[in-house]
């Protein structure tokens, strides 16, 4: 229980230990710990950044898909409209063509009918004359009754 020189000797060894720890133990370990902390913090920040970037990319891809969908829809709509237009046009054309063909055919038929009528008329008159000639023979003079025959033929 008496204070003596041990006090001073012990204080000196304490001072040496403090110096040693301050110089050789603390800084090395602190350096390692701080470097690791920084690495971890960087990693976490990078992960966070990656997450944000992923979110932005997801948003953008959704926008792009939406745009594409809208465009596709409008293209389809236009195409449908154009198709129905084309169909309508084709229908109109076909109808006009048909009408034209019908008109032409009708005209041709009329012509043919007329021609046939003419031919028939002439043949009928000749036939009538021949018939009449055969029936009447001499009593009828073809020349004298030509006018009459012509008027008959005309009436046919």
């Amino acid at each position, binding site marked *: 229980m008496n204070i003596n020189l041990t006090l001073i000797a012990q204080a000196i060894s304490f001072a040496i230990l403090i110096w040693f*720890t301050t110089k050789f133990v603390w800084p090395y370990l602190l350096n390692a710990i701080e470097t*690791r902390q920084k690495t971890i913090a960087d990693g976490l920040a990078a992960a966070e950044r990656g997450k944000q970037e992923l979110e932005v990319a997801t948003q953008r891809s959704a926008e792009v898909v939406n745009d594409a969908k809208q465009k596709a829809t409008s293209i389809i709509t236009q195409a449908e409209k154009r198709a129905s237009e084309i169909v309508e046009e084709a229908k109109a054309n076909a109808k006009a063509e048909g009408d034209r063909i019908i008109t032409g055919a009708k005209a041709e038929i009329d012509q043919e009918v007329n021609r046939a009528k003419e031919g028939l008329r002439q043949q009928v008159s000749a036939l009538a004359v021949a018939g009449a000639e055969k029936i009447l023979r001499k009593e009828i003079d073809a020349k004298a009754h030509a006018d009459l025959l012509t008027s008959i033929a005309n009436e046919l």
Partner: protein
Amino acid sequence: MATGHLTPSEYIGHHLSFNQKVIGDTGFWVLHMDTLITSALLGIVVFGLLWWVVRGATSGVPTKRQAFVELLVEFVDNQVKSIFHGNRHAFIAPLALTVFVWVLVMNAMDFLPIDIMAIVYGWLGLHEWRSVPTSDINATFALALAVWLLMIFFSIKVKGLGGWIHELFCSPFGTNPLVWPANFAFNLIEYISKPLSHSLRLFGNMYAGEIIFLLLGMWAATGLAGTFFGALLGAGWAIFHILIVCLQAFIFMMLTVVYLSMAHESH
């Protein structure tokens, strides 16, 4: 058993006497070789170990050894961080680590069974040798005094010599010249009581722990029942002592940090 031919007071006296080396003629010029050598050896071993682990410290994935040391260092660092506001890494935190680890291992010498250690020391030719450096008032007072000197050093370094003297006379009551004596008396008491309470707390705990172990050892020498109950109570006291050893080391460190951070703050 060595105590067979000893009276109880001789037994205790034997275990509590230092290995002294007289240097001068007055009572002050004496060295306690057991305290000095044990503490120095412990310091060399433990801080050598720390140095060895820390020298290969990696900032990547740490080994188990390094993780353990880091746990210790971060424990100390967190305590310092909560008390001291400044650049603690320059001095205060390493100091706290030194104090904590050194006091802890010096206290832990108390776990070694005192009579068996006496036999071991006897083989080495050391007949008066105390295992626990912190149960020597010189050791604890040396630490407290060193901290006290650092306290004054930092007070002067932070506030300047004038600032420190101003604080001695002008706090805690004010700057009025009438209260200067009261202020100074207050600060004087504070400066005296700090190292005393700091060192005596640790010394008292460790010394009392040693005495109790000795008393139980003495009881063990009285007969079979004494041996049985002495061993039982000794085991109980040793288990309780684990708490005391760690707690006193922690308290010593905390007080060191508190005193030094108070020295950094101006009132």
